[in-house]
């Protein structure tokens, strides 16, 4: 079964772009962008488990909060469907107490699968699971670790004349948490296009901020939010668990190099946030400052607001964001998500005031092009294999799995 899920046919292991480290943890980024014909050629049956596995791999490429990769997949060839689950052990209690960022992350994964389907000539019907919002927060004792969030059912679709190669974009996309080049501007027609992508979903709106003074203020707000959370012991410990040393082999979590940290700095922040060694206040403040500089040097900041902060809107926000980030990549723009302003309630309320809206901001991301070419070549984040993220049989005990915190693994 594992061989089938992680089939060698899915990957092109010969390719080795500069930002793609070797090793199993980075296999996902070597995913081939299959043509509809190649996709059909994966198996004799139409929409076999293998074909669904390929689509699920696309879902694995989606960005997730702290690179927790909380999306799990149940492949249902008999129903021509994939059910997407949330692994609540990957919902972070300190930084994401309501599970908002985790469910948005699931929305990104769903978005990837839906966009990949388009490339492969499939239509998708999406059905929201009836999981209550209260069951999407961090896992507590005796609760179910996995909860279903969405079902995607596939149908034969119409072939598009010149489809965007979404899968190629997915495997090239990454968070670029670097200073951007202020001289690049986001043109109005692209901005309008992005706003339509988000605004086409009921209850969602994309605010695009380009005014330099407003970007400066947003940068300060983000720095303030980051300082707030870094100074909370529980948040810092959690960050230490997920901000890893550069040579860490974990398939989840973020390595310091993705933030531009040297090996020594990554080790120091990892250990310092975990409480193993003392950090200086100015060190953590400097880390918070990088988010500020990142925002103020951006071409634009995008903020997704929702009319209702429920599961449906969170998933839709993630899906919309993923399409936006891929469309931006088409135009050579990269993005970086900043959750601090969203999840620190005081900052979120301040942001609502700035935006002149009564809707809740649920995503804030900056848009731009890295100022230094080498920053654009920082390595991708890691990903687990699909076989490690697949729901096989909930009755077999898999639903009471170990804590997925990368720092607590063997």
């Amino acid at each position, binding site marked *: 079964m594992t061989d089938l899920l992680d089939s060698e046919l899915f990957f092109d292991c010969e390719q080795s772009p500069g930002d793609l480290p070797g090793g199993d943890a980075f296999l996902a980024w070597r995913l081939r962008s299959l043509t509809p014909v190649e996709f059909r050629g994966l198996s004799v049956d139409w929409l076999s488990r293998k074909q669904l596995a390929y689509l699920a791999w696309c879902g694995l490429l989606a960005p997730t909060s702290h690179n927790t990769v909380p999306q799990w997949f149940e492949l249902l060839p008999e129903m021509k469907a994939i059910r997407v689950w949330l692994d609540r052990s990957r919902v972070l209690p300190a930084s994401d107490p309501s599970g908002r960022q985790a469910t948005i992350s699931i929305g990104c994964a769903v978005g990837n699968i839906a966009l990949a389907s388009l490339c492969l000539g499939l239509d998708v019907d999406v059905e929201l699971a009836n999981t209550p919002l209260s069951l999407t927060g961090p896992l507590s004792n005796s609760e179910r670790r996995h909860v279903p969030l969405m079902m995607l059912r596939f149908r034969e679709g119409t072939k598009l004349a010149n489809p965007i190669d979404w899968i190629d974009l997915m495997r090239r996309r990454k968070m670029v948490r670097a200073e951007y080049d*202020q001289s690049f501007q986001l043109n109005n027609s692209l901005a309008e296009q992005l706003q339509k992508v988000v605004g086409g979903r009921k209850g969602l709106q994309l605010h695009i*901020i380009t005014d330099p003074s407003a970007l400066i203020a947003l940068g300060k707000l983000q720095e303030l939010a980051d300082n707030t959370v870094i100074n909370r012991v529980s948040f810092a410990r959690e960050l230490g668990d997920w901000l890893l040393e550069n040579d860490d082999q974990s398939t989840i979590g973020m390595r310091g190099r993705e933030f531009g940290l040297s090996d020594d700095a990554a080790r120091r922040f990892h250990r310092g946030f975990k409480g193993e060694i003392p950090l200086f206040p100015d060190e953590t403040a*400097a880390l918070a400052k990088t988010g500020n500089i990142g925002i103020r040097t951006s071409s634009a900041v995008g903020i997704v607001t929702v009319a209702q902060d429920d599961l449906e809107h969170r998933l839709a926000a993630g899906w919309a964001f993923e399409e936006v980030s891929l469309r931006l990549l088409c135009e050579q723009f990269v993005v970086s998500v900043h959750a601090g302003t969203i999840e620190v309630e005081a900052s979120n309320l301040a942001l609502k005031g700035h935006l002149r809206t009564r809707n809740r901001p649920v995503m804030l991301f900056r848009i731009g092009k890295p100022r230094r070419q080498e920053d654009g070549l920082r390595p991708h984040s890691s990903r687990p294999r699909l076989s490690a993220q697949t729901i096989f049989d909930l009755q077999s005990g898999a639903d009471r799995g170990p804590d997925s915190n990368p720092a607590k693994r063997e």
Partner: protein
Amino acid sequence: MQLDVANHPFGLAGKGLHPLLLDAKDAHRSGTVSYDVNGTLLLQHPSVGSLQIPPTRQFPCVRATFDDLNKSLSRLANSPRTDEGTTLRENYENEVAHYEGLAAAAYAEGRFEPDYGSYIFDPRQNEIFLVAPELWHKLALLVSNSTLLVNPEWKHGWRELNQRLSTAVVGFAGVSVGGNVLEAWLREARPRQIKLADPDWVELTNFNRCERLSLRHLVGSRGARFDQRNPYEAARISKAAYIAYESLMVDPYMVIHMYDEGLTRGNIDRFLTGDGAKEPKLDVLVEEMDDLELKVIVRESARRHGIDVLMLSDFGHQAHLLWNPFRTCPTSRLGYGATDENLIKALDQAKCGERNKVFDYMAAFAGNDFATDEFKSWIEGKGEHPTASLPQSGSTAMASGAIGGKELALHVLGHPVPKDNRVIYDIMRRTVREG
């Protein structure tokens, strides 16, 4: 299509603070300023619409200006001579006679003010001031400095020296300690124009060291909130805007070229060299930014354009003064403590998140002896650390400003830069060291 939501308070921080300067004669004749019988002033201007200002918010300053000058300007033989050969005192007498004639006529006709001087409308306070014409207002601001500042050869007279000071164009990049240097420069020179750049907003923690900060500049009013009950909405005020406002409320005739987005890679050259039209080239740049990379980039650009750079650094109890005399020495290096090559290497290493590399860069920039005493202990992590930012002593920051302002004036008047371009004023040890 409007991308940004209109009227973001955070997009407008500090904008709207700029006082409005109106020539009194023009204002009366155009109807921009008029009075009703009770003395309520009606201001009609595109920037404010139509606004009634009661007498309690009107401040006629002309009489006081002439009274104060009367006390200061000597009638004796050493009163400075004008181009026409008259003394400053004689000119003053003539001007006062002219003003008093106009004032008497206006009073006799039942008007509130003659066609004389300039109105200054303060949009922050909704107050209006009537001040003397530029020559006399600026004279009153400068006259107490007397002839304490001269050129090295003692060749020039008071008028010529003031001319040199007032026409010098100094740009300030970073207006925390830079604002203190600005304040001292304004007090010495009363320049016709300056340039200011700072992207940050005012914080209460800046109040220990920045000139003229008060609660007026901490936040915007409740009226700026979208939801007036939302306690988290705090419109903040741009540092560049606050300091421009405070400076203009002293000298409203000064022209300020504002860069409230701060210096960026995209605007550095314009800041240094002007726009070829109304915005002039700098004579001196005062660089007080905390962006490690911009400090290098702006110096590289200043060197290319032959513009001198002055930096005052408040390191603990020491004020470090450092010149880059690029005008006279276009090959001089960017930092004090290292060659350009090593400085840029140190900069690259400082970006990787390692704390000690930041201090290595500071040493390459300011010299290996930049940290002493308690400041050095702070860097070494000894003792308690109540703040996450670099510690700054309020009085050292103020002293740095005063030293910088004087240094600018001396420089403009032709005094040489110090030995090896650097001076360390150690306030704790009460010593000064050149080089």
